[in-house]
């Protein structure tokens, strides 16, 4: 393949079909090659792809071309691949350039695969490419990658920023887009971490399914709006929202625990006595902890525990669990 000198203005760099760098988070074109380029000039030609209309797309050499443009070079040495070159071969060349960045971040892999899909690389060819990205070469994996690629941009950016694992990404992609958009629309009001996003999505989804209401209805929920628009730090609002969801997801447990607290509180036991139980109600056990600082206090506590209303209350507590 001959090396040709080609004017820079004829080369699609920003609009190149193969500018995957932006998608995979390698958009910084500040070159680290400037010293050698300054000293030696461009020893390695850049690689171009000539499409059927004759447009020249940069495939390999983004940093070198950025340097050349910055220096005001008029032309650069190029090798040009013909229009009939297979897209898979071209994508594999691009992968070599971005592999280090892509290997390190699952969302970068997703975006790389998505770019390859846009270029028309077939599913079969892509499956072969998966192993080069350290992914299992299976149609199911490809399907899941596609589902992740379809997540709203703000969700993908968040997953990339928080370094979501493949499993987390696959999981979050199972949530309806409307639900994800809703949760991310609260990003300024709430304190969102990776695990909190997962928890909120899961709890809201379960709540919506249980109540058979849609995301829009939940977004208009007066209690939710008041909570988000009220005073308090993002951390406090997040805590309050989690509590609200927990209460709504667990109406029976909330009611029974509240009834048990009422029984316990009505006893007015000395502060030295603390009654507790498993709030999930699974363990059939009531814990009664006594902490005293004098013998007299101990005698008072024992006397109090011997009274009939304490017996009745403990019996009632056991009936609840």
């Amino acid at each position, binding site marked *: 393949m001959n090396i040709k000198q080609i004017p820079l203005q004829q080369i699609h760099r920003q609009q190149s079909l193969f500018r995957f760098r932006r998608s995979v988070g390698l958009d910084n074109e500040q070159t680290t090659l400037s010293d050698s380029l300054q000293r030696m000039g461009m020893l390695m030609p850049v690689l171009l792809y000539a499409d059927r209309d004759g447009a020249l797309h940069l495939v390999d050499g983004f940093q070198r071309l950025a340097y050349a443009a910055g220096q005001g070079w008029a032309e650069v040495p190029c090798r040009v691949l013909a229009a009939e070159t297979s897209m898979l071969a071209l994508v594999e060349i691009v992968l070599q350039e971005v592999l280090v960045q892509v290997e390190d971040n699952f969302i970068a892999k997703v975006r790389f695969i998505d770019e390859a899909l846009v270029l028309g690389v077939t599913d079969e060819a892509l499956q072969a490419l998966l192993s080069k990205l350290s992914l299992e070469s*299976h149609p*199911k994996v490809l399907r899941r990658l596609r589902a992740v690629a379809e997540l709203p941009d703000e969700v993908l950016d968040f997953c990339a920023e928080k370094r979501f694992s493949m499993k987390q990404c696959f*999981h979050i992609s*199972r949530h309806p887009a409307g639900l994800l958009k809703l949760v991310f629309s609260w990003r300024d009001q709430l304190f969102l971490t990776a695990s909190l996003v997962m928890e909120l999505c899961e709890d809201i*989804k*379960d*709540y919506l*399914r*249980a109540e058979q209401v849609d995301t829009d209805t939940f977004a208009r929920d007066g209690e939710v709006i008041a909570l988000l628009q009220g005073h308090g730090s993002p951390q406090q609002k997040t805590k309050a929202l989690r509590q609200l969801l927990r209460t709504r*997801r*667990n*109406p*029976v*447990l909330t009611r*029974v625990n509240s009834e048990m607290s009422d029984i316990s509180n009505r006893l007015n036991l000395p502060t030295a006595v603390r009654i507790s139980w498993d709030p*999930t*109600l*699974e*363990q*059939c056990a009531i814990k009664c902890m006594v902490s005293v600082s004098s013998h007299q206090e101990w005698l008072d506590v024992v006397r109090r525990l011997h009274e009939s209303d304490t017996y009745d209350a403990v019996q009632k507590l056991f009936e609840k*669990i």
Partner: protein
Amino acid sequence: MTLIKNIVVEAGQLNSPMARQVGAEKTVSAVEQAPRTKDYRDGKKIAVITGKKGDVFGSCASMSQEYICCNVKVLSSVSNCPFDCSYCFLQNYLTNTTTMMIADMDAIVAEVEEKTAAEPWRFFRIGNWELGDSLALEPDIASAAQLIKAFRPLKQCVLELKTKSDYVDNLLDLDHDGRVVIAWSMNPQAVIGAEELKTASLERRLKAMERVVAAGYMVAVHFDPMILHEGWQKGYQEVAQSIYEVVPPQRMAWLSIGSLRFNPEMKKAMESNFPRSRITSEEMVLGGDGKMRYVKPVRTEMYRLLYEALRRYGGDDPLIYLCMERRDMWEKVFGYSPCSIGHLDYIMSESLQRRFPGLVHEQPQRELYDPH
């Protein structure tokens, strides 16, 4: 062929009675080694007749010290199932999803004989349904019929074949010696239609029950998992009534009650495999055995309602037990609780011995079943 698209026989099993029987009517391909399938649903379309590799007789996988287990023994002679229940734990359990049937009945029986001989005083309830449905493949591969024949000499055991199908034709004329229990997993039709896909309807299960009773079999019923749904109270009461319209209480070997439970990891698989099902969205808690369950007040209400209905229609004689519940739940529902897993095992043997004369090989001794 019913739900299975392809039957494969391992080369070493080509002359087995199971393979020969299939070969007479169906297209069978032979392979050196059984194919492995990863996808949960792909594995349901292919059945492999295979040899016995390693032990197949063991304890129920859900056994846990915190929860009372009935101590049934399981025979892993079937793996995977052509039915498609939304709550099935196999969707998150099997690493090889190919549907497998062990053809080597002599080897199975030899292992059962060897292991049961170690506890000669004990009466063993043995089921082959832990990793599949005992009768689902009966129209394609008459494996249950062969298991019944193979178990006939084992006087220390009763074989339980559990199903959600109505494939009982092969069983009706067999000489089962009254040592086989045909069991059904039962739910109201609303649950069957929504969650137990490709299985027999309630009506068909009831008709099949009636036919096996006429053929002299004992019947067992498992209301497990009970599932909350609109109108569940009426639904379960009606099923209890319908069962006793076709099964005389004296033919009912035992009944179990349990509710929906699954490990948290499986929730994702269920929602992904069955997006229309809403069963995972109910109020649930994580139990001491690592499984999600309905909250205790709800479970108590469900169990009490069903238990009362079963007693109303079937009387006090058939033994009813809870599957994987703590002692306090037994107390709440039945007013008593077994002291241990061994104690429940004894209670079940004693009930069978009393109710089905000649079935249990010797009078069960509490101190042997429950030495502590």
